[in-house]
């Protein structure tokens, strides 16, 4: 591995983050500028450090090897939040380093788990930066999973038939930058249109901007303590619900739709499975909470069910109701719904629907094969036969995910956290959702966790965001050998 090259690329990424940070300065000045100096100095420090790294390392980006790619991606998600935490620290909005880093990691991994008890007390520049970390992180993920990783056959997206997206793998290879530009276009468009719709619903432009960042990145940071529940507006609920679902959809489908191929949405098995599962969970939760939590008011039960389940399943983490107080069945459904996540190639986290779907298909195939031993039954996805090889990989992924969940939960339990909080905090951070249940529920936060607990959850957020393997590979001795 060429460490210099890795450092060089990381330097470039840090510079980019610093420049993005600079955009928070005018926003801050617009609202009194209490945090302008902190933001300005943070971004100067970030840009200068990044530039220094870029000089130390060679910024020669040609012929990056797979190993170097893994290292850049993983260290990128560890290093950039370090700089992202500077504004919180320098403005003294979050005085403790552990807390500031937690908040920043949660932002860049588009998780949305917060340690801030009173969000509304933060100055506007900081609030903007907090939401922007989501947006930057989401952008990074889309490019990583749709433009870069498919080239090395990694991640869930490469399971897809290429034509659906109109971007075949072979055509893609030489033009990563073009693909990235197209995806960013889609990303911007979604953000801008949501912002417009939210402003139509009476939200201020600042809040609309921050919430759009949080939605499209499936992040979940809000500028209000009560999250989207603050607005008490069915219109805003509906807009955000729709955009959360759009953000959890494969972005290449959006791109295809923009080019006129609307049918791509309907032909995509993963999206269909995602929506059917979503509808099912909403139905169960609505019925479960109807009489107990909503006094038999069906419209309310449905509205809050649809919003909060979309929020959990898209891994966003906004809330309009304190679902930690719902009946046990609804809570259990929400907990289970924390695992599958959204579609591959979206900004959502979790296991990814396509993997769950393939495993369910392989279970039904296995049952069929028991009766017809000699029959050769293939699993198909979007019409293509799925290799046994891929199934084995998908299985290994899910087991690592569950194994990681179990291990991290046990560590949290050892720190003295209660079971409900420990299990849901791990599940929610691993999937990049944000709120859990119990003492880390949507109307609570992560402030009360021990430092060890916070670092464990940071690891969960990064590892989960990078679909485990990139991060786990780095921990294996074989990676560092030779």
């Amino acid at each position, binding site marked *: 591995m060429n460490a210099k090259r890795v450092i060089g690329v990381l330097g470039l990424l840090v510079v980019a983050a610093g420049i993005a940070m600079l955009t928070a300065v005018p926003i801050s000045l617009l609202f009194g500028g209490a945090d302008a100096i902190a933001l300005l100095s943070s971004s100067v420090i970030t840009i200068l450090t990044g530039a220094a790294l870029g000089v130390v390392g060679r910024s020669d980006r040609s012929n990056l090897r*797979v*190993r170097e790619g*893994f290292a850049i991606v993983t260290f990128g998600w560890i290093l950039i939040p370090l700089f992202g935490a500077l504004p919180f620290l320098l403005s003294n909005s979050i005085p403790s380093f552990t807390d500031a880093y937690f908040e920043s990691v949660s932002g860049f991994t588009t998780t949305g788990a917060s340690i801030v008890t009173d969000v509304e007390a933060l100055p506007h520049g900081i609030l903007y930066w907090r939401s922007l970390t989501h947006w930057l992180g989401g952008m990074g993920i889309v490019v990583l999973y749709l433009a870069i990783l498919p080239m*090395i*056959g*990694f991640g869930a997206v490469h399971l897809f038939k290429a034509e659906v997206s109109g971007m075949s793998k072979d055509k893609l290879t030489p033009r990563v930058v073009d693909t990235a530009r197209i995806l960013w276009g889609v990303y911007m468009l979604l953000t801008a249109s949501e912002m417009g719709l939210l402003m139509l619903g009476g939200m201020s432009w600042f809040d609309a901007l921050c919430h759009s960042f949080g939605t499209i990145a499936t992040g979940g940071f809000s500028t209000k303590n009560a999250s989207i529940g603050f607005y008490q507006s069915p219109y805003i609920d509906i807009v955000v619900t729709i955009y959360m679902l759009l953000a959890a959809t494969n972005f290449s489908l959006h791109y295809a739709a923009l080019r006129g191929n609307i049918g791509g949405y309907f032909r995509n098995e993963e999206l269909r499975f995602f929506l059917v599962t979503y509808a099912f969970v909403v139905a169960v939760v609505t019925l*479960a909470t109807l009489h107990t939590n909503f006094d038999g008011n069906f419209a309310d039960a449905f509205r809050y069910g649809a919003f909060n389940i979309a929020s959990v399943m898209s891994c966003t983490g906004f809330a309009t109701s304190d679902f930690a107080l719902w009946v*046990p*069945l609804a*809570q*259990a*459904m929400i*907990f*289970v719904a924390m695992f599958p996540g959204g579609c591959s190639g979206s900004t959502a986290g979790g296991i990814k629907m396509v993997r769950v779907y393939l*495993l*369910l298909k*392989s*279970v039904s*195939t*296995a*049952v*069929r*094969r*028991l*009766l017809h*031993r000699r029959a050769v039954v293939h699993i198909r996805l979007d019409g293509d036969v799925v290799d*046994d*090889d891929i*199934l*084995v*990989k998908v*299985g*290994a*992924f*899910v*087991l*690592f995910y*569950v*194994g990681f969940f*179990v291990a991290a*939960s*046990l560590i949290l*339990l*050892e720190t003295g956290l*209660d*079971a*409900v909080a420990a299990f849901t905090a791990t599940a929610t951070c691993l999937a990049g959702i944000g709120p859990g249940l119990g003492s880390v529920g949507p109307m609570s936060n992560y402030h009360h966790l021990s430092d060890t607990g916070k670092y464990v959850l940071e690891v969960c957020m990064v590892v989960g965001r990078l679909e485990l*393997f990139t991060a*786990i*590979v780095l921990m*294996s001795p*074989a*990676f560092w050998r030779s």
Partner: protein
Amino acid sequence: MRIRSVLSVLGFILVVVGLLMLCVLPISLSYDGEDAYALAVSGLLTVGVGAVGWYVNRKKSGELGAREGFMIVGLGWVVASLFGCLPFLITGAIPSFTDAYFEVVSGFTTTGATILTNVEALPEGLLFWRSLTQWIGGLGIILLSIAILPILGVGGMQLFQAEVPGISVEKLAPRISQTARILWMVYVLLTVVQMALLVGGGMTLFDAACHSFTTVSTGGFSTKNASIAHYQSSYIEQVIIVFMFLAGTSFALHYRALRGEWRSYVRDNEFTFYAVLVVLASLLVFLAIPFGERDELGKVVQAAVFQTVSILTTTGFVTADYELWFPAAQWILLMLMFAGACTGSTAGGIKLVRILVLLKNGINQLKMLIHPRAILPVRHNGKSLDQEIIIDILTFFILFVLIFIVASLAMTALGMDIVSSAGAVAASLGNIGPGLGSVGAVDNYAHVPMIGKWILVFCMLTGRLEIFTIIVLLTPAFWRR
């Protein structure tokens, strides 16, 4: 489907169960015999029905296909339990059919979950029958896992068709029935030795027999309300730890050891993994036990080892209320409920070989990420495994977890709290017995709503019969001709 050949085999099973039920009569009579009448009637009825079913259909029995195999295995446990609960119903010891059926399914599946609040109030005959159901269930499981499931190819079990040391049909014995007979001898031997050791520790012959039945079958029914904690004897606990551990080991390995091949234990990947896991898990549990000043180190270690082995081997005996330990302890135990012990033993759960294969596959996948062009097969006991078997094992695992999730959600829908729901389902699906929360170590299942009991009955049966055997019966394709 050759339904009549299925009926003839089921009839035969009932005759065996009925005869064993009649064996309880002398025991009942040697005490006050208040349940002798019920046992005699139930035994005769079972033998009668079984004999008729067997006799009427005997000429039709011929070649049995996969479908017939699934039918026999699935219905075998269901029907045997139906007759097995007669003594409880007739004596009125358990008046409700749901409860009686739950108790007996828990017996025949070697689970050990009970709806009885006061076990000690039961007459001796019924207590003996209750323990005997687990012992019979254990016999059935050995036959199932060695002779039948590999042929049906359930959940990667074809892996053991000829590969588990010594179970090669040609090597060990010329015929399946002989294989079963040899392994049953090991089973009986273990039972008798344990019984003698327990009597040596001061247990009554009756209690020793009952507890041996439920240890060797990894069942976990006790004749005492406080389970093994009743005896407050270090020696008895140690004996039971050893025998639970042995019962969680493949019986084929025991057989080979009896023939002098001691090393086959060490050579078996699954056994090594099992031994290491017992040590590691005991250590983890030990760390999660609050350590008071007056506690002796040895006793705490023993409590940790006992509970770990009891849960991992899916037995379910208790010597301490593990819910009073640090929360981490019960969650570690919950994880162990899924693991189970070795294949070819009487233990339930996912089975360690499956977990081992999946772990090895995971490590291989990581290596292949770093070396994309490398082709690394998963090896078990020196042989590289087909990808098909890995996928079978994978689907087994997924289905196991899926049933756990769905059943737990169903239990919460009935109004149980989340921890008790998950604990009850995990303990039933893994055939352990005691769960967490309101069905924990010192509680029982009496308060579970009726539908909940039937869900748990389904879980016990499905878990015991390696999931697919039951699930396949529920698919429309199975019944289509």
